[in-house]
């Protein structure tokens, strides 16, 4: 019975962290068949967290962030080739170079790409960059080495804030433009957002919140500055667009999978759904591009751009690809991520946006060492530490056991009178970039779901 799972042809589309870890796990678990990895970048798998940190500081050359292999994967690597389509009936992946790769089981780990600046002619200006790939980081590091008079960072999420931090550490003038009321609000809510705002300003960042960049200005093809929605103007030689990521799902258009701007939907065992919500049993998905139900968070379909999630989900997907039903495992890891910026180590467990209240459970903003705990309808759903990461395992347990919010008193470094305030996270409905789904047809075999793009 299990023999058929250990042989055959497996194709992995996406040769980054999740793809590599899945390939290693497949071999680890005894898969002896043909394995092919497809990646659109020419580089072997590399690590992204250092790109917006050590690489921008010039401490690590961009070429040195390759991911070490845990074990040989004995695979055919198709690098520098984009997958252009999927034929689920013929069980073939179509490549941009015309090749058709037959598979018995497919794993999709195509991840995300940087959301581009929306005006293509402005985006083409020399000096306008994004940071997602190793080539991006290398280009930006070169620009920063050249000592620009001012850098503009558009967007103050984690990537934007880390870039601003690297600029300040290099002594460069930097302006950060953020649409929301404070940095990091979209991910961490208001309490830590206002803390981050004070921190950035204390480090000399020219932080502008509640504004958008309305246009990037250029002269002779080179960036010269930007206009903001409040009417102000900034001179800058470098602008980094840090407006989040776009999921790489377009190549799946027409494949019948439940793939769209929010990712590829799958079950807790990483099996992709088709667009009717019927589970496939030969197409799996993992990493940033996957969207999966998590029971701790009301089975909300989560798509996480976290290093740890890419590893853990890839391992579950690979395990399930080579094992029969009863031996399969769910992906139940509690989300976790970290960031380092402005001399601080920020670490998160749970889903901070899945909350209605927060409290500072340990430490204080003044000490710059604290643990903020998030609750949703009276239970703990997330915790974020600033320079206090070793405590997080405790809060992880509280999240896993749905412990009551606010957390029980007694910590030695708990504030005398902990305050519980609204978590002030954005309403997920407002954040949606997705199209609407509509149903068509009346006969049972004609009834279809279609995507109606946003106008």
């Amino acid at each position, binding site marked *: 019975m299990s023999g058929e799972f250990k042989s055959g042809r497996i194709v992995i589309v996406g040769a980054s962290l999740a793809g590599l870890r899945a390939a290693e796990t497949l071999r680890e678990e005894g898969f002896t068949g043909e394995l092919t990895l497809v990646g659109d970048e020419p580089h072997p798998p590399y690590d992204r967290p250092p790109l917006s940190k050590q690489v921008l500081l010039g401490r690590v050359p961009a070429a040195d962030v390759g991911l070490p292999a845990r074990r040989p994967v004995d695979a055919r690597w198709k690098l520098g080739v984009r997958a252009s389509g999927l034929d689920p009936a013929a069980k073939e992946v179509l490549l941009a170079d015309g090749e058709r790769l037959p598979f018995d089981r497919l794993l999709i780990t195509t991840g995300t790409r940087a959301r581009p600046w929306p005006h293509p002619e402005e985006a083409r200006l020399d000096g306008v960059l994004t940071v997602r790939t190793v080539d991006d980081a290398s280009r930006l590091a070169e620009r920063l080495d050249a000592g620009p008079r001012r850098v503009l960072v558009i967007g103050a999420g984690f990537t934007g804030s880390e870039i601003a931090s690297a600029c300040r550490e290099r002594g460069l003038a930097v302006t950060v433009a953020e649409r929301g009321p404070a940095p990091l609000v979209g991910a961490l809510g208001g309490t830590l957002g206002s803390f981050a705002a004070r921190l950035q300003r204390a480090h000399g960042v020219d932080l502008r919140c509640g504004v958008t960049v309305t246009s990037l200005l250029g002269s002779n093809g080179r960036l010269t500055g930007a206009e903001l929605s409040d009417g102000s103007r900034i001179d800058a030689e470098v602008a980094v667009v840090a407006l989040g990521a776009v999921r790489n799902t377009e190549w799946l258009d027409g494949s019948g999978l439940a793939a769209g701007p929010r990712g590829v939907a799958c079950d807790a065992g990483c099996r992709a759904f088709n667009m009717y919500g019927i589970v496939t049993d030969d197409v799996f998905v993992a990493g940033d591009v996957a969207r999966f139900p998590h029971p701790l968070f009301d089975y909300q379909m989560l798509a996480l751009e976290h290093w740890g999630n890419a590893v853990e989900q890839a391992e579950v997907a690979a395990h399930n690809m080579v094992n029969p039903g009863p031996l399969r495992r769910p992906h139940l890891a509690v989300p976790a991520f970290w960031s380092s910026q402005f001399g601080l180590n920020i670490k998160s467990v749970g889903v901070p946006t899945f909350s209605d209240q927060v409290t500072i459970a340990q430490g204080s903003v003044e000490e710059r060492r604290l643990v903020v705990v998030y609750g949703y309808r009276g239970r703990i759903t997330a915790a974020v530490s600033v320079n206090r990461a*070793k405590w997080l395992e405790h809060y992880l347990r509280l999240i896993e056991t749905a412990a009551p919010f606010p957390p029980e008193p007694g910590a*030695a470094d708990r504030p005398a009178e902990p305050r519980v305030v609204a978590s002030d996270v954005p309403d997920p409905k407002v954040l949606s970039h997705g199209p609407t789904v509509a149903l068509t047809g009346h006969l049972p075999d004609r009834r279809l779901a279609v995507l109606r793009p946003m106008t």
Partner: protein
Amino acid sequence: MSTETLLERINAYENRADPYPLYAELREHGVAQQNDGSYLVGTYHEIAALLHDPRISSDVRHRSTPDAARPDALPPSFIALDDPQHDRLRRLAMRPFGPPHSPGRVDALHEDIVEIARELTDGLRDRDRIDLVDDFAYPLPVTVICRLLGVPHEDMSELRGWTNTIIASLDHSPGDDPQEKQRAGMAARMAMGAYLGDLADRRRANPADDMISALVHDDGPEGRLDKPELMTTLTLLTIAGHETTVNLITNGMLTLLRHPEALERLRREPELMPSAVEELLRYEPPVQMLPQRTPLTDIEVGGVTIPQGAPLFLMLASGNRDPLRFEDPDHFDPARRDNRHFGFGSGVHSCFGAPLARVETQVALAELLRRLDGPRLVEDPPPYRHSPILRGPRHLPIATGVRAGAGA
């Protein structure tokens, strides 16, 4: 025998060589309350939760037992304090030792450690019988910590006397007069602290390339340790910087001699050494228990409420052998993969010197395997040191021939 509590039996010297059946008994009990009002926890998941629980104090002054608030001339070291004081002192001490400010310190010592280990094994040449403790496992980490901190090596014999007295004062074994042990321990800490404080003063005047010089010269944003803090911190670093490693190396060699197939495998596959050392930290950890935790509020553990202020003993070595966490836990497997042991504790107090201990033990055992030909245990079990907390053989006599041609 049966009238003794489990803690008394664990402390009893006759059980030192093999406390593991007692730990198995402890795990059967779940959380075990002792007659004296203290609580023992020996199961992995419960220990892990308590090590990360901010409501568990490391400061014995929070105990409701009368002797807990003993007066002391020196402030507690950071292992006996809670956040935020613990965090501040630990960070100041970490500044010259590890990342982010000194990421290369331990790495830079690697060649030195290899050289020291080689000199020591050179001294074993032509001897058919050695005491692993006196001839190798003790002098290696002592020499390393002296170089790292900047303590003159010739003063180490004096420091050894103080160290032994301080460690004896941590024990809760019956027999000796506990108050007398406490008094002696305190006096030894004062003497050792004064010695190290004077040494720091000298480094302030004449800096060298060592950790003490860095501690008195390189200020971070939070300044530096004051004199009493410096005295307790240096005492802690000196003792913790070698005592545990002596036991780890000795327990390691003892375990390998008891498992000749593992010893041979490590000779064939030296790349397995890092994972073998992790397994030793699980299987025979030098720090067997954390005896000074106290709940700051009533806490429920495994269905038992441990009251605020009760002495709480976390039995790390027992958690390391919990069958609910580790497959076949009493089996020594140098290639074990899933091995998140408590050999270095866990949580905010996890071992400060772990990277150094790892390098020292990996180098030490590799060098011993390379140099010793057909080593055999002369006495099994060997005589143990007294402490049930920092557990290891006092001597480890080994019969050996030095491997011909393996050196130089």
